């Protein structure tokens, strides 16, 4: 091993590869942008015709939730690439390289988070455009809150990519990955309050939303973008930050025991 420098080079190497792959998979980029826009326009528009929340249009209300959702889906789905790497035997090339498993994991996390962040930026631009066109009144996507938004999105991406990679490290087939990850995706998404306010939930449902880490991403984004939230911004960021650190440790451990 070449010490810290070698490990950093290893992380860079894996990042380089993930960026190249992302760049070449045009359909993946298009799908990852199109699906949240459809949610916003069709689901938001449809339900919005009869529902408004806290005095704002339903579409505006769910925009932060849809942003978090897109990060959730694309980040967790990123884990399938470790299954593919194993399947196409590329994993061997990385496993036999002189880098530690933690660097390998970190390289993947940085790669997956980059994909999700690029996608988020496109969605933020679309949101800002729609607001200008008068379609999402009350949306604030300005320079001011940008740093907070990006921080929340980044921590969310890191956490969710880690979850995806942990699942991926146990899975032998992409189909198995799909099955397990969808079991996790939908509860994480629906319980996060992405589609409804979590303030007045029935007593049996409220605790479930509290243990969903995505709740804090949605709440934080809503705080910055809409100016209304359940928790303090620092509270939200603190929780997502802690979760992402814990998941990085868990992911490193999962990669450590991963077999060829």
């Amino acid at each position, binding site marked *: 091993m*070449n010490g810290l420098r070698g490990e950093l080079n290893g992380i860079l190497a894996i990042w380089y590869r993930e960026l190249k792959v992302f760049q070449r998979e045009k359909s993946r980029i298009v799908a990852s942008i199109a699906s949240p826009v459809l949610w916003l326009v069709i689901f938001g528009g449809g339900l919005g015709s009869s529902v408004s929340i806290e005095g704002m249009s339903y579409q505006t209300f769910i925009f932060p939730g849809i942003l978090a959702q897109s990060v959730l889906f694309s980040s967790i789905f990123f884990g399938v690439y470790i299954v593919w790497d194993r399947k*196409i035997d590329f994993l061997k090339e990385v496993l036999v390289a*002189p880098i530690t498993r933690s660097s390998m994991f970190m390289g993947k996390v940085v790669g997956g988070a980059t994909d999700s962040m690029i996608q988020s930026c496109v969605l933020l631009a679309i949101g800002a455009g729609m607001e200008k066109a008068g379609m999402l009144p009350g949306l604030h996507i300005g320079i001011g809150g940008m740093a907070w938004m990006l921080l929340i999105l980044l921590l969310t991406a890191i956490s969710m990519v880690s979850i995806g990679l942990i699942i991926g490290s146990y899975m032998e087939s992409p189909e198995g990955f799909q099955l397990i990850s969808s079991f996790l995706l939908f509860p994480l998404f629906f319980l996060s309050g992405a589609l409804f306010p979590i303030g007045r939930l029935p007593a049996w449902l409220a605790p479930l939303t509290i243990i969903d880490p995505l709740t804090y991403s949605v709440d934080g984004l809503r705080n910055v973008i809409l100016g209304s939230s359940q928790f303090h911004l620092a509270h939200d960021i603190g929780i997502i930050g802690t979760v992402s650190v814990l998941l990085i440790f868990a992911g490193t451990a999962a990669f450590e025991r991963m077999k060829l």
Partner: protein
Amino acid sequence: MPVIETSGLTKKYGEFLALDRLNLKVDEGEVLGLLGPNGAGKTTTLLMLTTLLKPTAGTARVNGFDIIKEPGKVRQSIGIVFQDPSSDDILTGYENLKLHGMLYSMPPALRERRIGEVLELVELSDRKDSRVRQYSGGMRRRLELARGLMHHPRILFLDEPTLGLDPQSREYIWGYIHNLARQEKVTVIITSHYMEEVDRLCTRLAIIDEGAVVALDTPANLKRVIGGDVVSLRLRRNRDGMFSHLDFVRKAETKGGMTYLTVVNASERLPEILRAAGMDAVSVEVHSPTLNDVFFHYTGKEIREGSGEGSWGERSITYSGKR
């Protein structure tokens, strides 16, 4: 000082003993072949020496580093070309090599120079910017050979380097391996079940069967063990002691309907042999001893050539274009 030294290296998969207490020394500059049928323990040995698989017992030192205690240092000092393609087919040839250089912490200037050199060596310079998806099986293997060499490893491991390739690509690969062993001064370990391959490339050969080395010597010495030419006879009927009165017949064996005699100067002895066989002789063939005979001599089995599992060509077809 040996570059590889294994001591009691053992691997068990459950009850199955894949490799049984291997003790092997390899000196610098050798081209050592591990020859054996599928499941003999060749790939298991390779995976342990490259730290991808933990031994059940025993250990080994590779370039002076212990494979269990210093896996990172072992990995930095070796190169490996796997049996199955392990390049990323969505990247170009150049990108695969660049990625490799980064993984091995090569300084950028050296990395770029080496990429040029190794691409030149395997004659892929003009295809470096094509995606690997568009490479043929042979080209892909050449690329991976270039990649395995790129970071100046002191030992290069090749796992079935020509499995599943057409004869022409195989010739190419053999040429490159032959050249690099001299030019780059690397020690090469080749696993194979192609007799011709190890015969042409290897300076020393370990015959492995059922997890153990049954013979270890130069190909020439191993063939000398046979002690003569091989006469294969197809007989209508095989009578016991048919050739026992011929004192120049060193050994007579019957296998799969054929009778094999080991004879010194067989071509001169042929009339006498045929006389002994009499009317029962259907056909006769004389050849100098091959490694096939050597393998048969030590293991009592024939190696079935070309029956590798998951061949190179098939794999690349199955997975290309999907992801």
